[in-house]
């Protein structure tokens, strides 16, 4: 059993496992079952969104015009690119090209920051316009008061509650992603023995793709807002 470990280099087999295959597969299943909970997590918000959109269809359609499609689209491209660089990082980790892996990881982190910066502009605009739900909510929105005049404030609050809850939760995931990716890059840079096993990169990759996946749904739901 230990030959595999020797053969594959310095990959560490923890004492509870028999061999590297078992360990890797365990990691994979563990990560996926964790992602199951993430799906359910976003699922609740998604369901609330769909339900209220179904109830206030026209209003939601009108309100969504306050969101900037271009920013959303750019962000989608950024996240897709980061996903691409992430798979490359996993690929390079598998074939042990450390420097290529590092640059792919750094590119991913850069994309994540880019995403956050654009989100920051979007959010700060909304905050200035008083669109944060709560006692200080300003309605009709200053951006387009004529169009929004017909929309009741409570529905608008609902829309923005859901908007901030879902994109906010997604944003938190991005920030967590940056922290994990940063740590990983640091370990790769320091040639730590921990990252000899490509599984760690692979798992972080799964997480990052999931973040991308969520955005793939959030983008059309909020920005393209099918009528």
């Amino acid at each position, binding site marked *: 059993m230990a030959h595999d470990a020797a053969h594959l280099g310095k990959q560490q087999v923890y004492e509870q496992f028999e061999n590297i295959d078992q360990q890797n597969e365990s990691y994979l299943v563990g990560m996926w079952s964790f992602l199951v909970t993430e799906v359910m997590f976003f699922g609740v918000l998604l369901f609330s969104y769909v339900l209220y959109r179904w109830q*206030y*269809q*026209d209003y939601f359609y009108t309100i969504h015009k306050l969101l900037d499609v271009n920013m959303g689209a750019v962000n989608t491209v950024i996240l897709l690119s980061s996903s691409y660089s992430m798979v490359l990082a996993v690929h390079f980790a598998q074939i042990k090209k450390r420097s290529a892996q590092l640059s792919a990881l750094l590119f991913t982190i850069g994309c994540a920051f880019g995403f956050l910066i654009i989100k920051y502009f979007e959010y700060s605009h909304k905050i200035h316009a008083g669109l944060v739900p709560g006692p200080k909510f300003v309605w009709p929105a200053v951006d387009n008061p004529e169009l929004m005049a*017909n*929309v*009741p404030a*409570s529905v608008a609050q609902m829309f923005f509650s859901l908007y901030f809850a879902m994109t906010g939760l997604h944003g938190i995931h991005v920030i967590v992603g940056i922290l994990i990716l940063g740590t990983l890059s640091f370990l790769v840079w320091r040639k730590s023995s921990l990252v000899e096993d490509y599984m760690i990169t692979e798992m972080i990759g799964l997480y990052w793709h999931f973040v991308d996946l969520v955005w793939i749904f959030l983008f059309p739901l909020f920005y393209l807002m099918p009528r």
Partner: protein
Amino acid sequence: MKELKFAPVQGSEYAAQHDALFYLITALTVFFTLLVGVMILYLLIKYRASNKNVDRSNRIHHHLGLELTWTIIPTILGLGVFFWGMLLYKDSRTSDDNASDIYVVGKQWMWHFQHPNGLRENNELHIPLGRPVKITMISQDVIHALYIPQFRVQFHTIPGRYTTVNFTPNAVGKFNLFCTMHCGAQHSEMGGYVYVMQPDEYDKWLANGGNRFTKKADTMVESGRKLFVENGCVNCHQEKDTYRAPSLKGLIGKIRRMNDGRVLVGNESYIRESILMPYNNVLEGYENVMPVYPFTEEEVTQLVEYIKSLSGVSSEQRDARAASAVGPAKRRDDVAKQNNDANITKQVEATSAEEIHSEVTSEL
């Protein structure tokens, strides 16, 4: 000391039907508990380790036939109980066409009842024997639940949405009224009594304006009309449709299309939503110009009754029709016959509903 009771009084027609099902399930429960209990005790004693004189050879560890038996028999029994319960529940949730309407507003921590004739009661409800009752409820703060154990009925009272409870009392007496949904500090004090009276006594009681009020209050329709006039609703909602607002005549039961394409039916909930959130359902061909009026839930119920009276279907009008036809006695058959007349108007509207329906389906 009071005598020990094991079952609540059967105060409504539904209570007896409910109890029949209840005791059937009880019989099943007792039977299966005993079956399992006796079986286990028998096996425990027979196969106790100290008993060496018992045949333990040829053990079996699976037996498909047995497994299927104890899968299928409980399933069949369960399905039987399910269907019975489902049908009974449907009965209890469906209101009788002749039911007298009573409106309830639940608030922390009291029940506020309104009779159609304008009589109001707090935490007490007087109703006549044998007359079906439909209680329309709404809460103005948190979720409550109206529960009358002797009638075996219970339903949540939810903010923002009308719910109903239906029953026909068939025993005279004083029954409990509880709130069964935890609603805050004084949840357990949000209760009272339901008094079921002989119809003639009830009429007398009504005529005297109830126990507490000597002065006869406005009926709900009258109160509603006052609100309607005082708040200027009448300026836009006139006898005929105007360019600003549709007429409210004959609204109840009418099926109309909104300007976003949805098709809604005019009922209590629709009226309530249109008063409190007029922007939500704007009729096709109209602009969203109606302001939001901050009526209380009580006032809304009065307006609802008034608007129902414009369609000729308020409780008061139905009662009056029934009374004029058969005199003071309110025999249910007669009332039902009488009500067929009222249905004729509705048939006419239903045809227009069918038209809209076909229009809608053709479009889809």
